[in-house]
């Protein structure tokens, strides 16, 4: 029981972590809490659905429910969601920024964007539940009384691959360096010749692409529905802040902690309170460390 809960916690936590990296980026580089992030995740998941419906999810490889074509679908989802994020920035957030709007105004704009996106998905794909593949996977017992589905293992592996790749990009490339500089101080970075607007676009693209991956993974291991991203939002926020905004591995660990908290909580409190767990964990941490577990104090 407890073993299974831990395994499930890690598996859901990995998906939350992917979403949390994007939130963390927007907190750090774009400097606002993006409430529209969950719906970008949904948009990504549905883009992959359209691809698999038009093309195919491929012939299942081994015990996994999809073929290599699904990787193409994930890639397309990432590109669609990343581009959508850039487009939304150009239409909405960029205008607000150029007016020097308060960053809390940006948060509020993201509320509106979220509502629009969620209902666009509803309008285009309808309210019904979708699956990439109707085939049901039977979980394999990997440890005594701990069962996981093959797809989940692949998802976990892909998640860690993406995180490591992204870490290397941030550490080793010029873009990564520029982004870190921007996170420290946009003004200073600008003076040093960092193209702020280009960096903002890149940050949006990465956030959107990672959200899309989280969405497709969630769709693959559970199902697709128009509110899927919005319903994950609190968990994703909690993970991002738990880890300390701007810290990549912080976001990953935050995601895992949130996943574990949710799944372990049902052992002690009624399952009805599960959704509140990430948040309670967050409040607890913020009370002790107002800048998150791995963040550094920031001056206003």
């Amino acid at each position, binding site marked *: 029981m407890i073993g299974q809960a831990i395994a499930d916690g890690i598996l859901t936590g990995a998906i939350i972590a992917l979403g949390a990296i994007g939130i963390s980026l927007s907190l750090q580089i774009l400097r606002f809490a993006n409430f529209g992030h969950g719906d970008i995740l949904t948009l990504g998941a549905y883009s992959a659905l359209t691809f698999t419906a038009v093309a195919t999810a491929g012939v299942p490889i081994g015990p996994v429910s999809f073929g290599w074509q699904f990787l193409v679908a994930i890639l397309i989802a990432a590109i669609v969601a990343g581009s959508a994020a850039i487009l939304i920035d150009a239409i909405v957030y960029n205008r607000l920024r150029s007016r020097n709007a308060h960053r809390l105004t940006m*948060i*509020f704009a993201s509320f509106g964007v979220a509502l629009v996106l969620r209902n666009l998905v509803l309008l285009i794909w309808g309210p019904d539940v979708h699956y990439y593949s109707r085939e049901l996977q039977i979980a394999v017992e990997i440890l005594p009384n701990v069962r996981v589905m093959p797809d989940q293992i692949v998802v976990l592996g892909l998640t860690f691959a993406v995180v490591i790749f992204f870490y290397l990009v941030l550490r080793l490339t010029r873009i990564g360096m520029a982004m870190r500089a921007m996170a420290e101080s946009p003004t200073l970075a600008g003076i040093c010749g960092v193209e702020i607007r280009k960096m903002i676009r890149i940050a949006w693209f990465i956030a959107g692409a990672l959200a899309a991956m989280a969405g497709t993974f969630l769709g693959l291991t559970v199902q697709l529905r128009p509110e899927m991203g919005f319903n994950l939002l609190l968990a994703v926020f909690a993970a991002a802040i738990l880890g300390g905004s701007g810290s990549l591995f912080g976001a990953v660990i935050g995601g895992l902690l949130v996943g574990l908290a949710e799944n372990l909580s049902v052992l002690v409190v009624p399952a009805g309170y599960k959704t509140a767990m990430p*948040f*309670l964990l967050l409040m607890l941490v913020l009370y002790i460390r*107002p800048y998150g577990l791995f963040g550094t104090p920031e001056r206003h």
Partner: protein
Amino acid sequence: MIGIVSYLVFFLTVVLIFGIACLGLNLQWGFTGVFNAGVVAFYAIGAYTHAIITAPPNPLLIANLGLPWPVGVLGAMAAAALAALIVGIATVRLRGDYLAIATFGIAVTVQLITLNWQSLTGGSLGFTSIPRPLAGYFDGQLSYNIFFLGLVAAATVLVYWALERVVRSPWGRVLRAIREDETAAVALGKDARLFRLQAFVLGSVIIGLAGALHASFIGFVSPFDFLPILTFQIWTMLIVGGSGNNRGALLGALIVWGLWSGSGVLVSKVLPPEFQTQGAAAQSILIGLLLVVMLVFKPRGLIGEEPVVSRHVG
């Protein structure tokens, strides 16, 4: 004709109840710059407290007190104050967007408590038979609703008048000073956290009052009344009307609730049956767009903040 009057009375009552909540939020955001993304939490606390205090005893629930209506309203405001104080002390020191997320989470948690603490709140069944004040003295539904509209209007005027005085007082000026430039305000010896906490609590009390009015007007509350979308609606009202202006807050409530309800009528009238679902989605898209367009093109809202100068100047 009577039908339209009767609907308008009902509609205006709802507008004013939202308007009061909007005034409370305006004190927090419009005047002080405190981002409360959990408006619905305090609204729900007000509504449920009122229900628990005034509803007649029910063997299935632990605390139905059956006390008079004014006690219910005051109790609702007190409960909202207490909740805001607890939340505020824990969160007011957080930076703005963390506060937004924290309050958003509190709203989710409060909603879960109303859903799961069955012996207190009735759980998912909701809370029925909440008495309506003086209902026995009226024989018609319309005449009663007109009376209730008068009652809510009186509450609105009272809150409006009090807030107008408050924001023009030295205390109100400190709030705006903190909003505009916290560092400067602190340098002048003002404890920014304390002021923000006070504004947060006072605003939440007003939101709690709106919740209590809602409960006694409809006569029924359930956890599904308090979904995050309500926070969104109240925020949209404030932004559209013009934050920082109390008249704007009320105007926003009128316009946004009018659009929300009017676009539903439009969808139902104009679209052929097979497109109704799509129409309903389009309706939500329009509301979202309205909000974004307002923020981008008319950030000060329809009536923006007026420069408020102390009576003592000039």
